[in-house]
């Protein structure tokens, strides 16, 4: 039945797509008068060449895993959650409140509490759009876009007026207590005799992200709830026939989505900046859309796509640092990667499929 072997589907085609994207990016780099080969070398070395580089790449990837999973779970219920940006910001608020409320003695206590705080706040921010979709049919795309703007205003107000440390120029909270410090990769790996860069922001939330990927997979493909979510996503009429309540699925999947987006704050707020700052999400919510789409809403795919975007972010920073290439070029490369691996996929797939079919016929 199959048109081509699975390895071609999951490996060969994405590889060709990426190659095309990078070739085109190279041309853009050439066009602005720089050397693409040096650029790619800088990017790869800068994001995988040292433990410090890895530390940054994985730090960004962690953010994208969370927001990517958030968008992905909503996709499974056929909902387009554009609100990851706002949910992650409000998740940060949850983390900050938890971390500042108590003088935490140790991170093992602080992390679970902050995780719950992030998840509840993130889910809470998704609650109203979800409710309006379920009960009033208000389009989730509009409401989540609006909630992104509203969250920005809310965070602005809170950080400037309520949560700011007096005398501080920056609109940010005071630093979290030392007991809320999450182990970085350096601290985690030192006991195993692995020397990981001390200063890279990657921290234990990466493991939390991996755990979420696994739980996501279990939830979607191994539990009844996941079965119901997928059913609803594929066909609402069929789901109703099967006794699956649309209201319930919309509410639950959006809340999980919001919670996952909120969890991103564990990484950037608690793990990296160790205080809440204005605009802490920095567009990761939007990158999550690309990550989920490229990862085909599958946790393995999301993980790989997040890694790719982590590489692009970190490699792009290095590019700018050492090659003086404008930082927006990274955005161009991201765009080309999204375009070729996501939207223009069939451009490569169709001819490759035909090749395989021909080959098969000749063998048969």
């Amino acid at each position, binding site marked *: 039945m199959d048109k081509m072997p699975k390895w071609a589907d999951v490996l060969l085609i994405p590889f060709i797509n990426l190659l095309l994207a990078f070739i085109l990016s190279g041309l*853009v780099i050439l066009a*602005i*008068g720089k050397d693409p080969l040096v650029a790619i070398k800088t990017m790869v070395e800068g994001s995988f060449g040292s433990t410090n580089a890895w530390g940054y790449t994985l730090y960004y990837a962690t953010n994208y895993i969370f927001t990517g999973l958030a968008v992905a779970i909503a996709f499974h219920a056929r909902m*387009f959650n*554009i609100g990851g940006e706002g949910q992650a910001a409000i998740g940060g608020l949850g983390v900050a409140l938890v971390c500042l409320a108590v003088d935490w003695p140790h991170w093992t206590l602080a992390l679970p509490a902050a995780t719950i705080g992030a998840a509840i706040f993130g889910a809470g921010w998704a*609650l*109203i759009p979800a*409710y*309006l979709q*379920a*009960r*009033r*049919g*208000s*389009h989730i*795309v*509009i*409401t989540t*876009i*609006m*909630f992104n*703007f*509203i969250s*920005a*205003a*809310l965070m*602005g*107000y809170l950080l400037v*007026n309520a949560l700011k440390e007096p005398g501080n120029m920056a609109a940010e909270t005071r630093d979290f207590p030392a007991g809320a410090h999450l182990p970085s990769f350096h601290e985690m790996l030192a006991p195993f005799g692995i020397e990981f860069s001390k200063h890279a922001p990657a921290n234990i939330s990466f493991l939390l992200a991996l755990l979420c990927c696994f739980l996501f997979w279990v939830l979607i493909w191994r539990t009844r709830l996941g079965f119901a979510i997928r059913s609803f996503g594929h066909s609402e009429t069929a789901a109703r026939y099967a006794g699956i309540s649309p*209201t319930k699925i919309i*509410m639950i999947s959006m809340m999980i989505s919001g919670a996952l987006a909120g969890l991103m704050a564990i990484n950037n707020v608690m793990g990296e900046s160790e205080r809440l700052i204005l605009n802490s999400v920095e567009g990761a919510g*939007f990158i999550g*859309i*690309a990550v989920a*789409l*490229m990862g085909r809403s599958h946790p393995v795919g999301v993980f790989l796509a997040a890694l790719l975007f982590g590489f692009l972010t970190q490699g792009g920073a290095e590019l700018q640092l050492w090659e003086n290439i*404008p930082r*927006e*070029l*990274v*955005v*161009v*490369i*991201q*765009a*080309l990667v*999204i*375009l070729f691996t*996501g*939207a*223009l*996929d*069939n*451009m490569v797939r*169709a001819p490759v499929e035909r090749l395989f079919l021909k080959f098969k016929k000749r063998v048969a």
Partner: protein
Amino acid sequence: MDFLTLIQILDSAVRLATPLLLACLAGLFSERGGIFDIGLEGKMLAAAMLSASVAAVTGNVWLGMFAGVGISILLALLHGLASITFRGDQLISGVAINFLAAGLTVVIGQSWFGLGGRTPSLMGEGRFKSLEWPLTETLEGIPIAGPLYSELISGHTFLVYVALLAVPASWFILFRTRFGLRLRAVGENPAAVDTAGISVVRLRYAAVAICGVLCGLAGVYLATGLAAGFVKDMTAGRGFIALAALIFAKWRPWHAMGACMLFGVLEALSNRYQSIEAPTYIIVAILIVMAAGLVWSSRKSLLDLAVLGGVAFLLVTVGTVSLFSSGLFGQTAIPGQFIQALPYILTVVILAGFVGKATPPRAGGEPYVKER
């Protein structure tokens, strides 16, 4: 609010609504043809950038306009290539175009002008002038109609009138012409169009091309009509607001105008009344009434009670806090951030309260595939 203020707010609303309206109509053509487009933002941005660049270099805004519209059409065709010819995911393609425009406008702008993606400021013939309508001075004295004419109707740039005329034109094209009939059909059921012997591909390309033209005009207006030059990311999310307006309008031209004007008015209002104070007791009363209304309307089920009750609880909390901080008869300053967020909050409220379910064109978002 006196009459002149009202006129001024409406005047501002028209200016703010124009880019939204053009982009919204752009999305309307595309989505009516069955191609979802979240890349409105990117196309606007690219058009703004190129039009400003060309206008700055040549000093001719019309050349700028053609260049801006041209780049927007190119991006629209790229979207078409991905989603029509290669049957890719329309959301992905739209996201990619947004990223592409955000990056390229700055990279290219930087290598052209060295101003970090900004273009030089446009002067003289480099930007669209306001068109003063005949007799504005003479008629200004007439009460009501005078200011209405000279302040609100007259004195906008060319593209504002284009946008306003685009509304009846879009309506006419969609509902009164052969092309419109086919376009709507291809967004509802491409197989019906195909079996009727019409090319689905060509129709859909036409739809995205029109989308490109209108989106381009929106961008051109931003850079050469409203502002005088391009600044990176100057669309500032307007493409997404246009998308929201489109859904709000349920994919209909006149409603699109209504939705965009609503956004315009809300934004103009929040610009005008950014810092206001009100007696605390009024605020508290409003909050309590709203909370009571929410609780009252949530009798039906546990879910309603939980969600609406929760919101009501938050409102009451806010009321209590302001009560404690300023006393019942004191003045409470409404935070500027709240006023700035008000357009978005009201959008949600209106959507939830009055608009109800919006059903997109049925074949929208799905590539047309004859053979699996």
